[in-house]
């Protein structure tokens, strides 16, 4: 290949490039916020008469069950919101992208949806939220409601965790064991937790309250692929623990409780809200779970005895007759309602831009949709609630859980400052 040919080709290419670049649609045109009819300021995520919200969910990966419930609940909320007239005369649309708990797809999904949506009503997976955090805080400034309760996500005015984070939830859980299950100073508690963000966040909580209450934590770190808890139960029994906290998945919880019961190791076990699924009650571990197992949850269960919960169950059953009822529905519904509430407030302030919605959410200080806990969004550094409800598996209850202790915040959780 001779040199002049290459040089000419390069020069030609460069010239063509510059000519072409001139007529790119990406070229900047000046134009700030639009003003629609009625004097409401609008910006990204609103075109025509539609407000688009994004949902980055997991329908094919490890959190597929949670993702499906959350997404369907949010779609139901949006449907009802539109049926009631929408927001400011705008219809709300939910664009869903499934990332299958894959970082590359999650980041790609965020990049794809970000220019088109006003904000995200759902974003599963705290590592992925963390991955785009700089973009959210730096230039996008869109409201994101992650379905991840990690204290590492606190502190941003745009990423707002709904409900108590895992560390606070664990503090409340251990507090329940102390008050109701006779755990006292000097006792040992076992903590079986997932390697990674969720489990480690919970461990921070159990260590905090252990120090305050004079307990000793016996740690058992497991991987999400470990399903058999025999070794952990043996180790905890050996160590002589009086109670066990589990921050893992439903399968691990069932194995732990089942193995402990089979071995005559009769101690109370309490899990975080992700450590239970109603399907477990049909397994062999079912009776043991109903006897010894408790779950700390940021809200009342789906089968709660409130009019709002009963209506949600009825509507959800009508819309998705074949799907199971679980607490993912409550989480999704709560997040979508919080976003909807922020939109309505922003509409009242005549500012439906991203900035306007962020500001509107910051003014919501007592948001209660009938699931027991009251959300306060005024402080970005704190979770929206520090309360936890303690539930117990019960196969006769809707959603498989009944309430044993109403929403409450322990004094340790009240005084605790999460580390961002």
């Amino acid at each position: 290949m001779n040199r002049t040919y290459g040089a000419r080709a390069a020069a030609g290419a460069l010239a063509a490039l510059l000519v072409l670049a001139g007529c790119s649609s990406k070229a900047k045109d000046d134009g700030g916020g639009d003003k629609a009819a009625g004097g409401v300021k609008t910006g990204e995520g609103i075109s025509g008469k539609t407000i688009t919200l994004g949902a980055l969910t997991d329908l094919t990966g490890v959190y597929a069950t949670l993702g499906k419930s959350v997404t369907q609940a949010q779609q139901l909320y949006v449907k009802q919101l539109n049926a009631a007239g929408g927001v400011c005369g705008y219809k709300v649309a939910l664009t869903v992208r499934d990332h299958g708990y894959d970082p590359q797809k999650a980041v790609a999904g965020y990049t794809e949806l970000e220019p088109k949506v006003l904000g995200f009503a759902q974003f599963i997976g705290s590592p992925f939220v963390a991955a785009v955090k700089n973009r959210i805080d730096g230039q996008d400034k869109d409201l994101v409601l992650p379905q991840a309760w990690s204290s590492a996500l606190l502190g941003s005015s745009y990423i707002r965790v709904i409900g108590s984070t895992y560390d606070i939830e664990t503090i409340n859980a251990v507090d329940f064991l102390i008050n109701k299950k006779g755990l006292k100073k000097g006792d040992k508690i076992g903590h079986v937790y997932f390697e990674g963000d969720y489990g480690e966040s919970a461990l921070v909580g159990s260590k905090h309250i252990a120090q305050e209450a004079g307990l000793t934590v016996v740690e058992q770190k497991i991987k999400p692929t470990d399903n058999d808890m025999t070794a952990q139960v043996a180790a905890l029994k050996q160590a002589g623990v009086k109670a066990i906290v589990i921050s893992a998945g439903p399968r691990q919880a069932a194995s732990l409780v089942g193995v402990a019961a089979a071995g005559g190791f009769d101690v109370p076990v309490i899990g975080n809200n992700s450590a239970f699924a109603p399907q477990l009650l049909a397994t062999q571990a079912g009776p043991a779970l109903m006897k010894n197992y408790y779950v700390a949850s940021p809200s009342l269960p789906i089968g709660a005895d409130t009019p709002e919960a009963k209506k949600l169950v009825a509507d959800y059953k009508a819309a998705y007759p074949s799907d199971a009822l679980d607490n993912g529905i409550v989480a999704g519904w709560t997040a979508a309602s919080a976003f909807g509430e922020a939109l309505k407030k922003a509409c009242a302030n005549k500012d439906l831009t991203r900035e306007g919605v962020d500001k509107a959410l910051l003014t919501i200080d007592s948001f209660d949709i009938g699931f027991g806990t009251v959300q306060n969004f005024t402080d970005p550094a704190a979770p929206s609630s520090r309360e936890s409800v303690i539930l117990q598996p019960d196969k006769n209850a809707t959603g498989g859980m009944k309430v044993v202790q109403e929403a409450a915040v322990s004094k340790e959780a009240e005084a605790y400052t999460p580390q961002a």
Partner: protein
Amino acid sequence: MSENPAVPQRPTAPGGPLRPESDEPAPAGLRPPSGTRAPGGRRGVPAPPGRRRARLTDPRTYVRAVGVVLPLAFPFYLDRFWLQAGLFAMAAAIGAIGINLLTGATGQLSMGHAFFLAVGAYGYCVFAADGGDGLTGLGLPTWLAAVLAVLVAGVAGGLFSPISGRLSGAYLGIATLALVFIGQHVMFNAHDLTGGANGRDVPPLNLFGLTFDDRELVVADVPFGSAEKLWYAGLLALLVGAQFARGVLRGRPGRAMNAIRDHRIAAGVLGVPVARHRAAVFVLSSMYAGLAGVLLALVFQRTVPDYFGITLSLDYLAMIVIGGLGSVSGAVAGAVFVSLLPQLLTRYSDALPFISAPGTGGIAPGEAARFLYGAAVVLVVLFLPGGLARVAARRRVRTEPGEQ
């Protein structure tokens, strides 16, 4: 010994289970003596007069020109989603070239590619970060950090050479599999170095005073964010990586590697230092993975341990099988296919038949991508043993004589 050592005297001859299409031009007899692709005419030998006109009428010249201009123009037109998808594909292509040198050209199975990608990605963060976020950071200039990260990946590959030089086939595959698990364990637990489960921020690349971050830089009225700027860095890295690999495959080392793949004992008899070549190509492949890791980290802007799992390693193996074992163009084609397919399906899930909208039941786009991907691997193995690159090569052989 049951095998006849006389058989593999022609190392590039078809034989053995791995029979990839190498970049080596086919024997001269299969090719027309003239034409731009003739083995001699490419390098050094001046083109005879009259050739230039032939070149101007040759459609391939224009195809190639478009192929050069088009990627350069993309950042001016495509939005961030596409640029990011392209950057993922470029990073995958660099990594796939690396593993193709190892697995495709030398016949050494590696399941540990994800580990070396992680070494590159985290290595870059450790070298380049200034320690402001409480994690270990040396605060070196970012270009130096990128170079060092690639070298560290090479060193990691080198440390593995006592194993990689001695083992082959499935044994090496199992041995390298361990690397992925060790790597993920370290990533989750060495908090000061890796930031634990939530990963750590990646400092933006800074070259000649140009920072590859999201601060807007307006070029010809088009705002350039990180994706637009990185696009050119990625293209350059891919181009250099591809040319280097081509050089390796076409030269003496490439012949030696193919000889080792086709018949290790015969290669040894011919005087090829088998263990040394195996170890060296392992180091080189690790460095490619390291470079891919650095580019990925820059695109992600944050490294998270979940990414560097066993599925990533399998993805890379799928890329080279689909694209074509042993060739640079095959690796690139496979990487583009494997990394773009899921993103395309997800993006157009609303418009595609058989794929249901998320949350409504039925086949989700993520599942559909996996099905297609599995089908592609099976179809390629059954009907295109040389991969996508083979299709292009066959067409070339078929059309060229007709042009004369």
